[in-house]
């Protein structure tokens, strides 16, 4: 088993319109653990079973959306190598000093063809949670508070030129394509799912005319039953649900799409299969695009393609 290079999605920085409301949602309803606040007023969270200090970073702003999406790499040497590879590919990179994000080492940031700011980093402080490391119990009070996902899992981003995005992620960052949806012509991709691990996806993109848009950040739950529990908690808290509980054809995850109090979509999901890099990607044709996204309804809701932040 060799998981090397880019390890996983490590952090996402999300803009919120009202920090107080956002903190109630992310902290109490979603049930993430607040791990810090910085001098810019950003608030940091992690999910209960994550080992690093933070994964979701909120910033109050006058518009919703995503500031950047970061991947953790296996070592500082890999960070240097990938920085050089990204530059050689033709993308300018910026080094953001260690400590700019709490407990986070140097980050290398660049913009990809879809207009998103992507970051790589090698170091993040450990979650301060000894009870999860020494003789760890299978669950604890934090794993039961609110929706309480296991981890921040992946993102779906919207923007133009997704074939260029795929080329970059595959040929520079070492990802592989796990699934795709094709348009009527049977060639042009509407959407791509990419993995750097053996999850069915670590990041995904949908073709969209406007660059740098967020469709959702996603959080992993343990079971379909927890997905139903999440839906109950959402309704009890008047959370705006977009779709679900249902199943995605793509990745086979059981899912709910809903919106945070600033209109940023998030997903809580369970399941999906394991992949390997030597597998051929799964392809969904235009005729079955509905089932690809919502397996039971077999049709898209208009919001899937058009409601983004």
């Amino acid at each position, binding site marked *: 088993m060799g998981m090397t290079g880019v390890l996983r999605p490590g952090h996402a920085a999300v803009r919120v*319109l*009202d920090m107080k409301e956002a903190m109630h949602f992310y902290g109490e309803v979603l049930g993430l653990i607040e791990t810090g606040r910085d001098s810019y007023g950003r608030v940091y969270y992690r999910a209960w079973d994550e080992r690093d200090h933070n994964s979701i970073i909120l910033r109050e702003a*006058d*518009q*919703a*959306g995503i500031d950047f999406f970061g991947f953790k790499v296996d070592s500082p040497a890999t960070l240097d190598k990938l920085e050089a590879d990204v530059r050689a590919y033709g993308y300018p990179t910026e080094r953001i000093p260690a400590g700019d994000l709490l407990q986070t080492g140097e980050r290398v940031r660049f913009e990809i063809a879809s*207009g998103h700011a992507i970051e790589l980093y090698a170091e993040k402080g450990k979650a301060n949670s000894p009870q999860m490391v020494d003789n760890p119990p299978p669950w604890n009070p934090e794993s039961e508070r609110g929706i309480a996902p296991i981890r921040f899992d992946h993102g779906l981003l919207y923007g*133009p*030129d997704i*074939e260029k995005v795929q080329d970059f992620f595959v040929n520079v960052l070492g990802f592989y394509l796990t699934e795709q949806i094709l*348009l009527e012509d049977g060639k*042009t991709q*509407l959407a791509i799912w990419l993995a750097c691990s053996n999850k069915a996806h670590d990041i995904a993109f949908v*073709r*969209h*005319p*406007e*660059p740098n848009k967020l469709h959702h950040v996603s959080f992993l739950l343990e079971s379909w039953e927890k997905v139903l529990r999440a839906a109950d908690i959402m309704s009890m808290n008047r959370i*705006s649900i*977009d779709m679900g509980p249902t199943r995605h054809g793509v990745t086979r995850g059981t899912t709910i799409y809903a*919106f*945070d*109090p*600033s*209109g*940023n*979509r998030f997903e809580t999901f369970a399941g999906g299969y394991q992949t390997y890099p030597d597998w051929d990607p799964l392809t969904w044709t235009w005729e079955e695009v509905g089932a690809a996204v919502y397996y039971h309804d077999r049709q898209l809701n*208009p*919001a899937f*393609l*058009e*409601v*983004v*932040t």
Partner: protein
Amino acid sequence: MATHTVRFVETGETLACNDRLTLLQAMERLGRKGIPVGCRNGGCGVCKVRVLEGSCERRVMSRAHVAIEEESAGYALACRIIPTSDLCVTVIGKMGRAFARPEQDRKLTGE
């Protein structure tokens, strides 16, 4: 609890709206249509309307969709306004645009 009447200029349809619900909530709760529904939280912009007459309470909404000048001209996101009088509104937001195509990608990104 006061009830206000919201009139849509395009269709002449009216909607009763109490002073605890946003315009979008009032519409959705009655199973009515007319304003596109997206995030319901002021972020995505699909529920944009212009208030031509009347007053409402406004909650924070994304500047990406309602610029300051627009706000003073009555533009708003229906999921972030609560009518405080009878209103006359026109629907600006749209859903159901064509899918993005590679050609469109290039046009919009200026390549």
